[in-house]
Every structure is written in C-alpha cells, then in structure tokens.
C-alpha cells in the first residue's frame, strides 16, 4: 500500500460576493468585535452552497464546503468539474496562495504548481534569465537551476531564442519555457492547472509524457486539472469530481467521467413567456436516459421540450433547434419543418421528444441551442441550453479533429479492394 502523501480534511472556503466598499468596514468591525468577545465569526454561519446560476439571498458563499480526499504517493489524481465548481479555489489552497476558511491540508511533500502562461516572466529579460527567475520563484536554488539549465532549454525547444527577451516570444513559446522549468522542478507534488491548452499537439504530447514520467519513474504525485477528458483518461489513475463546491464523486477514472457527464444542467435559460407561449422545461438526455450537458459525439441523444400555450392552441406548430457555436454561427439545425413533420397540439400543454438518431457529428466544443417556434407568428428563444460536446470514445476516429481538419466527424473505415 502506497503512503498517503496529501490529506485534505474538511476544507471549506467562504467568499464574500459583490464589491468591496464602505460596507466592508462595518462587517470587519463586527467580526473583530465578535472575536474579542470570544464568539464565533458571525458571517461564517451564513453562506450558501456554490451554485453559480441560482440566485441566492446571502452575500456570502461557500466556494468549497467540507472537501475530503487523500492522495497516495505516485498517483496522478485528476480533478474535474464544471466552471465554478471550485477547482481553482481548491488549487489555490493547495498551493498556499490562500488559506482555507476552515479545515486543514496535511502534506508529506513539497507542492509546486505549474504557472500560468508567463506569470513571473519578466518581458524585458531573456529566456535564460527568466528560467533562473522562474525557477527561483518555484523554490529552486540557483545551484539546482544551473545544473539543469541545459536540460530545461532542450526540453522547451527554444534554444534559438533563449538569449532573446521574452517579450518577443509567442505565447506558445512562453508556455513551453514555463512548463520546462516546472517539469524539472522535482517537487513531491506537482499541481498542473489547465495550461497545456495553449501549446501545440507536439508539445502537449511531450508534456503529458513528461507528467507520466514524473509519476511513474520519479514516484511523484501529480494533481491534474482539466476539461480535456482525453488527457484525463490517458494520464490519471484516479478522479475527483467537484460539484457545487463539494466532492461529487471520487474513484475510478471512467466512472468519474460518466458521473461528470451526467450532472444535471444548470444552463436552462427558461423564458417566462413570449407571445403567448412559455417554455416550461427543456432537457437533453443521452442514450442512457441521463440528463446531460456534456454530450458524447455520436451518442444518440434526445431533446425533451415542454411548452405551454397561454392563449390559443396553434393548429400547426413548427419547431426548429439551431445548434450554434460560441460565435453564434449555426452549425446545424434540427427542424420539424425541414423534416416535414406535422405537429398538431391537442391540449394547451405539450411535451415533445426529438430523437437525434446518430447524435451529433460536430467537432468537440461548446455549443448553444436556440429554439424557434412557428405558430401564427415566429417566436425565438435564445440560448435555451448550452452544452459541451466531447469525444472520449473517438467513435470512428482514433484522434480528435484539429483546426485544419474542419468541423464535422465523418465515420469511416478503410479496406483494400481485392
């Protein structure tokens, strides 16, 4: 049994929402008054769970609430969760940038975190000077860096530019340099936040390989935070899924990913009522009938729409779902009209199920759904749903599509014709 190297016990972190202004000083005084009387902090009692989309009453929110987990030596632990689930806060506490409100983290090794693109780089200094500076910031001594400098420069692949000021570097080159320094840091625990996304494919592969080396041969522990399920799958040995500031799941990687994919949507942008029609509910279910906001490519999903007609029931209803990319450009449309389906509601409330027979074959990424209804007039509901398309099974493809490959997967196989 491997030794526990990191133990997170009941860690919670409270944040105050809104802006700091004149009101802050009165809260500060209140808190200080409670403290000298030996009472509990009056503002620690209030506070709500960290759910980004619901409107709360309290000014205080628990970004993390009672987090518990352990990390064994040599393990690569993946941490995933939706935006705002508390990943960054947890990492900040782990790397001692901020302290938890309650609870404690016990560690048997030094923790170092990989810096974001060029943080700590001084633009006027050369690559070599910055390696020294960055290494020192990360806790290396000058001697340690000097003994590894050639290795670091070689790993970064920036030999040609190493005596040029960093301000002339491309952002990819900065990441390479930053990662090269951190990778040679040899901490007991390395925290890697989503920084590799900037590098190109060659470098990402190199970086993931290096992280594998660090854990396998070096016996070191890596905490890896990412939205990239492919990287999580190929790298991690265990997974923690954060959900609204708590640990939603921890355990095997594949189960964790499935759990993450099935987390109920919070993006539903329900409109009260438009031109006498109300969208009561909209859901996306995957092939296992779980409600999802992260969808696998080619997974035969279904849309479930509930509508309420407040005035008169239309005799002929046409429905279109526009699937838009991040820039609002329609990528595909699912339309009853183009499919010449005729929908005739009988009651003032209807539920409609649309099956996507082959699922989406679009490139992975974030998409939003606009809904358009044609009754006697045209009614638009924008952004009723936002989802992430991912490709972890690589159905029909072994590797994901790159920028230059276009935007649609086309499953294929290859045979020599005899």
């Amino acid at each position, binding site marked *: 049994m491997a030794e526990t190297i990191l133990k997170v016990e009941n860690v919670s972190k409270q*944040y105050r929402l809104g802006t700091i202004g004149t009101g802050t000083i009165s809260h500060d005084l209140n808190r200080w008054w409670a403290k000298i009387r030996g009472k509990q902090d009056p503002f620690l009692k209030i506070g709500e769970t960290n759910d980004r989309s619901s409107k709360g009453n309290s000014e205080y929110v628990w970004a993390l609430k009672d987090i518990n987990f352990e990390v064994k030596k040599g393990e690569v632990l993946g941490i995933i969760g939706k935006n705002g689930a508390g990943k960054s806060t947890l990492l900040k506490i782990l790397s001692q940038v*901020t302290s938890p409100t309650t*609870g*404690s983290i*016990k*560690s048997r090794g030094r923790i170092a975190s990989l810096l974001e693109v060029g943080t700590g780089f*001084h633009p006027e200094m050369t690559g070599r000077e910055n390696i*020294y500076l960055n290494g*020192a910031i990360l806790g290396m001594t*000058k001697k340690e860096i000097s003994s590894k400098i050639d290795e670091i420069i070689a790993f970064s692949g920036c030999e040609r530019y190493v005596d040029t000021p960093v301000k002339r570097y491309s952002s990819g080159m900065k990441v390479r340099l930053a990662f090269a320094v951190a990778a040679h840091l040899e901490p007991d625990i390395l925290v890697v936040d989503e920084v590799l996304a900037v590098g190109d494919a060659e470098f990402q592969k190199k970086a993931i390989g290096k992280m594998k080396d660090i854990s396998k041969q070096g016996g070191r522990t890596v905490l890896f935070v990412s939205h990239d399920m492919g990287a999580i799958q190929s790298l991690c040995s265990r997974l923690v899924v954060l959900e609204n500031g708590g640990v939603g799941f921890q355990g095997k990687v594949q189960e964790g990913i499935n759990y993450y994919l099935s987390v109920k949507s919070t993006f539903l942008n329900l409109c009260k009522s438009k031109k006498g029609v109300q969208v009561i509910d909209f859901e996306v279910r995957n092939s296992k009938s779980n409600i999802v906001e992260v969808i696998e490519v080619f997974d035969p999903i279904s849309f479930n729409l509930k509508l309420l007609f407040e005035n008169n029931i239309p005799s002929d209803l046409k429905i279109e779902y526009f699937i838009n990319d991040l820039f609002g450009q329609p990528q595909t449309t699912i339309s009853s009209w183009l499919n010449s389906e005729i929908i005739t509601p009988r009651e003032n409330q209807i539920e409609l199920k649309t099956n996507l027979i082959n699922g989406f074959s679009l490139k992975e990424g974030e998409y939003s759904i606009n809904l358009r209804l044609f009754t006697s007039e045209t009614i638009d509901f924008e952004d009723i749903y936002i989802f992430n398309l991912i490709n972890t099974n690589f159905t029909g493809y072994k590797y994901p599509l790159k920028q230059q490959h276009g935007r649609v997967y086309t499953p294929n196989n290859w045979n020599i014709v005899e």
Partner: protein
Amino acid sequence: MKTPKEDWLYEIKPKDTLFSLNFKEIWRYRDLLLMFVKRDVVTLYKQTILGPLWYLIQPLFTSVVFTLIFNNVAGIQTGSIPPFLFNLAGVTVWNYFKECLVATSDTFKKNEAIFGKVYFPRVIMPMSIVVSNLLKFGIQLTIFIAFYLYFVFIGNEVRPNVALVFFPVLVLIMGMLGLGLGMIISSMVTKYRDLTFLVQFGVQLLMYFSLVAYPMSLIEQKIPDLAWMVELNPMAHVIEISRFMLLNENNFSLSGIIYTTVISIVVFFVGLVIFNKTEKSFIDTI
C-alpha cells in the same frame, strides 16, 4: 501493517492569529531575493538611451532646483556648507527612504498575478525592493562624493564627522522604517485602496517636514510653535543626522537618535506582523 504516524511535512490551516515568521523558509528562498534584486536593477532602464545615468540625473536636477528656489530665491542659509551640497545630501538620503516606502507599499497590488499563482514567502518581495534601492542609493552616494571632492578642491571648508563610520547603521534604520511603513500600507491597500492616494501625495508633503532643504535650526527659529511636527518625524532626524555625519553640520540631538531608532524598530516589527497576517488570504480581497 503499521498505521503511518502523523509525521506531516507541513500543514495548511486557516490563518492563525499568532506572529509566525518562518526565518528558515526565508533563508531557503535567499536566491529568489537576489533574482528579484537583479531583475529590478537590470530591467529598470532597459530600452532607454541614458540607462543607469537616470539614477544620477534625478537627484542632481532636484538639488539644482532646490538650490535655486530655497537658497537663491527664498534665501535659506546653510552656514559654511555650499547649499548645493547641503541639498544633495538631503535629497539623496530622502530618495532612498521615499523609494523604499513607495515601492513596498504597492507590493501586494503590483504582484497580484504572481502571488495568486505560486507560493513563496511574500516578504521576499519588499525585502528585495529595499536591497535593490540600496544599490541605487550607493550609486547616488558616489555622485555625492564626487561633488564633495569638487567642493573640497575649489577650497570649501567641508569635511565629514568621525561619526560617519555609523552611517551604515543609519541607512539600516532608514531601510527598516521605509520597509515597515511600506509593509503596513501594502497590507491595508489589499482591502482599502484609499491608502494608495494618501501615499502618493503624503510622501510629497512629508518631504517638506523632513528637513530635506533646510536645517532644523531654521524651523525652530521661524515657526517655533510648529517645530514639534518636524521633531515627531523620524525622517527629519535621519536626514539631520546624516548631514551631521557627511558634512559635519553640528546640529543633532541624542534624544532624536534614540527616538528614531525606537520608532523604526517598532514600525518594522508591526509591519512584519501585519504583512504576515495579510499574506495568507489577501488574494481573496484584493
């Protein structure tokens, strides 16, 4: 199988109230301190034509203007000492304090990006500022010495006092005062930005109460009722004493030395405590 003993390397806990400065840790990061000093010195005047000459131009021109306004126009007397040299001494010493205070008071805000990502003893940052300013101060002192020799050469009766051997101690006291005040202010700026504005013009005003361009005797003579305001200012004593050491201008009080030393040490340690408390969670409020 034995259960592992509770032999943790360290523990991350909510902020504790006690004064806890980890000197061992600061020592471990000493290379970082040197890196920061190097960064500050090397990069300050990159892509300028005059480069480090700017270190010299600023105090020289200030002293020239002071001499014109205070001595030639306003007619302030500086005894046997040439007014320009009198002002240059004041300006050079004052500059060191000012630079330390202004630069350290911005520590948390300016380094938010890096502090928000990685941990190292935060106190390294203001300490490096004080050290790199010390280098700058050294360069400015050489120009002072050059002018000093020039005035001796043309026959002025200027000579240092034997107490000059204690000059490094005075610089240390001044550094502690600047660093201490800077740490207090930078800690408070993380939450309340009001202080940034106060520092900007406060330092400017403080200069006029710090005997930079006139001797203590003058203020005692002209506005004896308000002389206490200058008496209370530790920097006034520092500048007065440094002029005594450098130029043998015989006006200083022993009580002034003791007062200044005590104040500087108190401010420095109060600053350290506050800074240490702030560094644990400032990133949430900045």
